[in-house]
């Protein structure tokens, strides 16, 4: 069965530290890749997505992610985090289907806490 693994359930960093959150998936075919963020008490928001093309994807708020097909990975990075980045981050994978029905397979999420 398809799965999405996020390596860290909790990450605590100080402001200005660099961030990398790991995401690996198990599906071998063509995939669409997403990172969603959920700020405390809020709904899910798209951070960035990869469908095709340049494997280094830039998203909102200074986040980027790199798709490495050979490693089945789509790690999220930010060079210098801010207190406002405190949130839960979810990696998700979908595979295109004939009827364009995209069911996302979700990782378990990584809770990121930034210490001021």
């Amino acid at each position: 069965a398809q799965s999405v693994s996020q390596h860290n359930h909790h990450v605590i960093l100080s402001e200005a530290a660099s961030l990398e959150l790991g995401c690996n998936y198990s599906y071998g075919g063509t995939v669409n890749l997403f990172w969603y963020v959920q700020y405390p008490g809020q709904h899910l928001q798209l951070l960035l997505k990869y469908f095709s093309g340049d494997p280094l994807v830039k998203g909102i708020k200074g986040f980027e992610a790199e798709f490495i097909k050979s490693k089945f990975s789509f790690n999220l990075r930010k060079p210098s985090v801010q207190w406002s980045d405190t949130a839960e981050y979810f990696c998700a994978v979908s595979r295109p289907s004939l009827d364009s029905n995209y069911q996302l397979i979700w990782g378990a999420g990584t809770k990121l806490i930034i210490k001021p």
Partner: protein
Amino acid sequence: EPEVTQTPSHQVTQMGQEVILRCVPISNHLYFYWYRQILGQKVEFLVSFYNNEISEKSEIFDDQFSVERPDGSNFTLKIRSTKLEDSAMYFCASSGPGTGELFFGEGSRLTVL
């Protein structure tokens, strides 16, 4: 910017009661989804809906659950007889054709007592 809206934002109900959660997807979207997130756990797929019928559903989506698009704008999730373990945040999402990107509503928190 178009957005997915959900009502109610929070509902408290007694075990065994019926609950209807409502969603208004983005107007030109064709694919609709319900997800749930039990407190502290991952987001779980419940069901997807296209062309007025269910296209996929998970094991969670048993006979207690149903979805409907009653009037061309609303997309509802009904839980027929709620159980304690149905307490969760329920997210509605919609997507347009060929994008693969889901747009989420703010969620409806359901508390079953």
